[in-house]
């Protein structure tokens, strides 16, 4: 039986992004690819939501950022490169991630109790 579609709520988006950054520093496009890959395409965080979220995390001090120049290896040595903005979880961000995880675990425990009882009724 197909499951109901899953939408990534704002609280979940923050948790997911912080969790990805908790493993390693990353950049916008890579974060969006990681979300799609780990959820087998079930979760998608659109750029119109991802980049404002990253900006908000930066403003709140949950992540720190730095810029790197990226150059493509091409036949044309004069081809221009571009800049890449890297995000790294700050100490405050790690704390927030831990709070999110704890909150999700508690909710999961409560939901599990209902799921188990529904299994008994089936």
């Amino acid at each position, binding site marked *: 039986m197909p499951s109901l579609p899953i939408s990534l709520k704002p609280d979940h988006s923050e948790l997911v992004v912080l969790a990805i950054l908790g493993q390693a520093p990353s950049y916008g496009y890579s974060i969006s690819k990681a979300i799609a890959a780990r959820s087998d395409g079930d979760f998608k965080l659109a750029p119109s939501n991802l980049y404002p979220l990253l900006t908000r995390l930066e403003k709140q001090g949950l992540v720190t950022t730095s810029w790197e120049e990226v150059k493509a290896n091409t036949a044309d040595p004069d081809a221009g*490169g571009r*800049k890449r903005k890297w995000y790294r979880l700050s100490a405050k961000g790690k704390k927030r991630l831990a709070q999110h995880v704890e909150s999700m675990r508690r909710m999961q425990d409560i939901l599990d109790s209902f799921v188990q009882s529904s299994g008994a009724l089936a």
Partner: protein
Amino acid sequence: MTEPTSTPSSARTRPSKSKRGEVGVKPSAPDSVETWLDMLVSMLALPKPERERVRDELEDHLRSRIDDLLITGLTEPEALHKAASELGETADLARQLTRAHGPKRKRTYAMHAALFALAGSIAAVGIMTISPTTGTRQSPNAAIVVSDKPAAEQHAAAGNHAENPTAQIDFQDLPFPEAFRVVAESFGKSPGLSATMLRRYREHETKSSMTGTFTLDEAMNRLLSYDPYGNQSKAYYVDNDVVVITDPMVVIRRSIRTATYEMDWIESYEHGDIMVATRMAIENSPASQFSQVSIAAGSMLITARPEAHVLAERILLDLRNNYESRRRAELATEAKAAEAIEVEYASLLERKFELNYQLDVLGHQSLGSHGRRNDLPEDEREAFDTDMRELNSKVDRLRYELKEVVERLAHIRAHLIKTEYAPILNRLPTRSTTE
């Protein structure tokens, strides 16, 4: 994932040639990506540095996505089209980004008052420090020397005696026109005196004397003090090799310069206030003659004397420093307030889950209580009743707390929604009073 190298985010440099780079595919068609980015950036209502940073980040996203799509076999136009469409409606993306990056825009009269007060205080200092251009003082700065140099250099040169050559001058009891000729020729220049002025000066018998080493400025000031018409009515300027005595207003008019001042460090709706504050400061200064201040294409155009330009530069620098420090404080306050709300919201959510869980547990306990009571001996029923009353009382307390928590959560949600949509609501047209 490799560790990023640190590069100052404010550095905006074009990438130079690189001997080694990231292994990848041929870069995407730059013109199309640039066009898309230009369109997006034009919709961002943000200061220029912020727009540049958003542009850089989205360029990286777009090009990275295009490179991945090219690997799958799409052509460049197909890859660009797909990558751009994945970013969503450009206007919506621009709106979301502007909202995320932009500050809360509260236009208050307090800020207007602060702007004008700041400009006024700078102008008051400016009045005390700007030298008068005419007067009876024998000051090195009393005369105006006009050149083709920019305003700042003109103002600096006026007081820089080290760059002004000196000459030995010695004459006694010469009529004004001859004395003027001697002074001019002492500095390798010719005297410039109109025929009318020459005739007027020859009608007077005032003689002048000068002995010593002087700069041109000193010599002319001394000479003009002998001017039968009073040096308040005369000033001089140098035009190539001619020293010209004329009306002070002519000298002032010749010194007028027009300069453009960039305003991209502040939101465009503040430009009017900045312009008014600058104009007021210039108009209240001794250098106000012939000044004009206007806004054009996001820049401020000032046509004025060099001293007014120096004043304008100082005002704009102070306004900018004041604005930037205020913005930093606002962002810090907003961040703290937002964080406090989020912490409270998270805490309330947890408490709500906990209350529901406890109520659920207590609910199970009270299930079948009637049946259990009937099974108890008479002497144990009273104790059972007491326990049940306590249990029900606890349930009531928890339900009451849960109600309060739910209400508080709704209030915070309403506040967040209002904050989120306030910029949009503020931009909606209001009903006309004639309707």
